[in-house]
């Protein structure tokens, strides 16, 4: 069953074509890796899918609906959530409040609801507090509920980012470089966490990542971009053996390059 479908997606910035005619599909329950050299258009592609940027051409279908150009906060309600490359958090909030705030789409959040403050509103939002606690435990941040997000270590910030991404209860989670800047131990921890998101919660995952070992380890399939174009797609083994991919990463060996 298809969950996400990109059809001939293109994005131009003036004369620069950041994403050029990219099509691929992601199955439900899949962990998909999106790799490519710097400037390949991976983050731009994420921005197009998650509604941060509008595509110049092409369509995005999510769960059978055409969601091209739909704004990010609407896509969250449909079940698509993304995280950001640089630890985007609510730095002045505690860990708990970060996750609680991220359950927003399930809250009774209106101005009038807040003004009246009915018992039903109260019950509903209380239940979300419990859910937030559960998510914090799941990602392994229990005991740190009351620490300020801004003062966490880098590894914990990354975990909190995932917790924040889980709070809206997504069916598709787009992770932008979830292990960037982490040490070996934390990378392993994050990879285990990501795998368990799929295995225990059935969340489909698309991740952009530069850490090849991590990508090869956990992804079912990998899509490779270069200069905004899709140049390869397949299982980790296929990708590792693909001549075009090797070329994209290492360049072509010839005498001129050797001389330079």
């Amino acid at each position, binding site marked *: 069953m298809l969950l996400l479908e990109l059809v001939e997606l293109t994005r131009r910035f003036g004369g620069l074509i950041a994403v050029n005619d990219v099509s691929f599909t992601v199955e439900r329950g899949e962990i998909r890796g999106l790799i490519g050299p710097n400037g390949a258009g991976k983050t731009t592609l994420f921005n197009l899918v998650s509604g941060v940027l509008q595509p110049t051409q092409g369509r995005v279908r999510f769960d059978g609906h055409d969601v091209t150009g739909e704004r990010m*906060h609407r896509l969250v309600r449909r079940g698509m*959530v993304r995280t*950001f490359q640089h630890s*985007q958090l*609510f*730095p*002045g*909030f505690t860990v708990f409040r970060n996750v609680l705030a991220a359950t927003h789409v399930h809250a009774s959040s209106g101005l009038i609801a807040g003004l009246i403050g009915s018992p039903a509103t109260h019950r509903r939002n209380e239940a979300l507090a419990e859910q937030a606690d559960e998510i914090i435990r799941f990602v392994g941040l229990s005991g740190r509920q009351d620490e300020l997000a801004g003062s966490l270590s880098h590894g914990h910030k990354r975990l909190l980012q995932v917790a924040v991404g889980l709070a809206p209860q997504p069916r598709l989670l787009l992770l932008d470089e979830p292990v960037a800047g982490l040490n070996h131990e934390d990378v392993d921890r994050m990879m285990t966490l990501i795998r368990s998101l799929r295995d225990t919660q059935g969340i489909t995952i698309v991740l952009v990542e530069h850490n090849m070992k991590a990508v090869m380890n956990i992804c079912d399939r990998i899509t490779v971009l270069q200069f905004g174009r899709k140049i390869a797609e397949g299982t980790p083994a296929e990708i590792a053996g693909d001549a075009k991919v090797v070329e994209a990463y290492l360049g072509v060996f010839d005498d001129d390059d050797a001389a330079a």
Partner: protein
Amino acid sequence: MTARVLGRQNIAIAALLAALLLVPAFVRDAYFLHVMILISLNVIMAVSMWLLGITGLISFGQAGFMFIGAMTTALLTKSAGWPFWAALPLSAVMPALVAAPVGRLSLRVKGVYFFLVTLAFGEVTRGIFAYFEVPFGGWYGIRDIPPPQPAWLFTTLNKVPFYYLGLALVLLTCAVIYRVSRSWFGNVLWSIRESDLLAASVGVDVPGTKLIAFIVSAFFAGLAGSFYAGYFAYISPLVFTFDYSVGVLVFIVVGGFNSFAGPIVGAVALTLVPEAFRVTGKYQLLAYGLILLLSMRLMPDGITGTWQRWRARVAHRPVAPEPVGIGVDEHV
């Protein structure tokens, strides 16, 4: 621990309320009551600006919304012969209606551009009211605005009824905005200040939420404007200026952005300070400026922020993890 603190806080608020209710029984000095009425106007303005300020946005159009509210009351009571009490709610609704399209346009831009657009809105409002002598009175303004009913109670010489009206409006404004700021909606406003991108990524309609806060801000500014017209019986474009909007921002900054008490404390303190220095005559403004300078230098978190810090130090515990300051240097 928290329960005891909360209990103490409730008692303090109840005592303050009782004292405010009893003030006219002991003090009938017209000047004193006049200052109290000024305070009530400033508190309503500060609290209403603070609500949108939570998201990190300062609307310099607040004086403009206040002017629209005042103008609505002036026209309805003087020209159309409405009673003040009917004009009052409409004078709050009117700026809220104007705020909807203005907010939709101005909230597209962020930071300093938002300040400029709202500043322009305030000045354009003033300009329109100043340009058209009919029906807005032009630069002369509108005088002899009828006082609230019954006329025998709300007389020029008796400030007590106006004092109570001001107090009632302050309580209404504070009750609504406090509740909103503590609700989920309020939490969303705080989260937008922390990171609007992340807020949007977890499903918050950021422009929509800001717009609602903007409209609510305008509503209460209009309420203050209506009260102003009813009390002073005279409004003019020279009153609802950009300077006044800045003054309201200063109330919040000096009082402290991070707590609901901040704008209230700031408005009270900075209405009293210039009055206290009235005896210095021509040096009044100088003294006011000096006090502002010192307060920003010595209390960068405002009065309430400094108070919290001091209490935390006395109790040997860290400052409660409330959201960090709005960062005046960053936004103004």
